[in-house]
């Protein structure tokens, strides 16, 4: 577990510094795109303008750090309905989602 976490941290560093290095496979990216649109969209809106959850538009997300967004996806926001997704998403997945929301990857 500890090994996985530290690998994950390295993955994050790589993902932030060199987004292409830790990029999930195309099949996984397809799943992640669908998840962002459909599952995240249930609370944040399919157009990402927000709902029960806050807006996820690139202009909103650009105000906070990418690392913080990765943490929020993995750990959730206690006291709010935003759950920790780490049982479903790896750190690489989360880093790719952040880059995707910021419009840095397609």
């Amino acid at each position, binding site marked *: 577990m500890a090994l996985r976490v530290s690998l994950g941290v390295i993955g994050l560093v790589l993902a932030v510094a060199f987004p292409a290095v830790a990029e999930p496979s195309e099949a996984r990216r397809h799943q992640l795109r669908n998840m962002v649109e459909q599952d995240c969209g*249930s609370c944040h809106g399919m157009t990402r303008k927000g709902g*029960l959850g806050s807006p996820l538009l690139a202009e909103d997300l650009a105000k906070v750090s990418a690392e913080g967004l990765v943490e929020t996806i993995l750990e959730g926001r206690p006291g709010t*309905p935003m759950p920790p997704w780490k049982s479903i998403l790896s750190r690489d997945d989360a880093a790719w989602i952040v880059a995707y929301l910021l419009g840095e990857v397609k």
Partner: protein
Amino acid sequence: MSRPILSVALAGLLLAGCSAPLRGTGDLGLVVERADGRVMVVENTGSTVLASVPGLGDLSHAAAVYSRDARHAFVFGRDGGLTKVDMLTGTIGGRVIQSGNSIGGAISQDGSLVAVANYTPGGIKVFDAKTLEPVADIPAIGADGKASKVIGIADLPGRRFIYSLYDSGEIWIADLTDPAKPAVRKFTNIGKLPYDALITGDGRWYLAGLFGEDGIAMLDLWNLDKGVTRILDHYGKGKEPLPVFKMPHLRGWAVAGNEVWLPAIGHHQVLVVDKTTWTEKARVDVAGQPVFAMARPDGRQVWVNFAVPNYNVVQVIDVPSKTVVKTIEPGKAILHMEFTAKGERVWLSARDSDKVVVYDTETLEQVAELPAAKPSGIFFTSRAHRTGL
């Protein structure tokens, strides 16, 4: 494959022809195609599609209610759009963008008013059901002085609507007997973050689930002066909860006989509550975190669907024995279920399989399948005559 297409073509002919045979609306319904801002008009006697209606905006979270004659649907979209759909012609009869962001709505007992519950700006807006002209605008400024999101709206007898304020933890009842002068009765300090609410089909009990703490806020609508009471103080996340990947939906269809069936939050269980004492009487272990626990209209079965990642299965619970009698896999990402009026069939939307699947509720076998693009909510016209739906 050719049958639904033929049906659509046939329906088009029927709907277009001026000598179209007369038709009732009692077996009609809508299926939301959430990614395309479109709804399908369907009929549940032969399980076919009659029409496809585009142009409804962002339907990532959508709900619908029906006019009392079941001719028109009022569809509430995520983007604040309120769209009136003519079920017989398959056309849009009116549409307003009434807010920036909405969650659902209700139609008054007499069918004259449609109220929409909004997130941004928080509050309700009320419209004339015939014309969609605005009638009233009631901002939801909580006791803390801040605007709150509104959730869990339902109709009450008289021209009244009940709803909850998510951010400030309140329940409000708006009386529009005189639409020009809405009277609002407020119940404050009901608990933290009410996320959805249900009203029992008899219109007497309003239950708001609390996300921010364990328990349910309950209002006896026959005894408003008693105020809000708290029940099921252990209900909620409790100790060591699992992450909640999708907010559970409460709603009046989970009442089976003298029992209310509720999705547990953060646990793979459905709770059974005795409706006479409002205490928990059983828990049924299920395959994931329940999103909807819906009673078949006769109350003999409860069907449960689940949050991601367990949303490819649906479980059927036998109410008398409180046991799961079947686990079915109708398709990928089952988002919603809707029973026909008398419950002999249930329709399920399989979002990631791009289809709607119909099951016989006695044999628990699939009997029909309809292609649909990323389907979510299914709403049959039988809702027209039920309080809170």
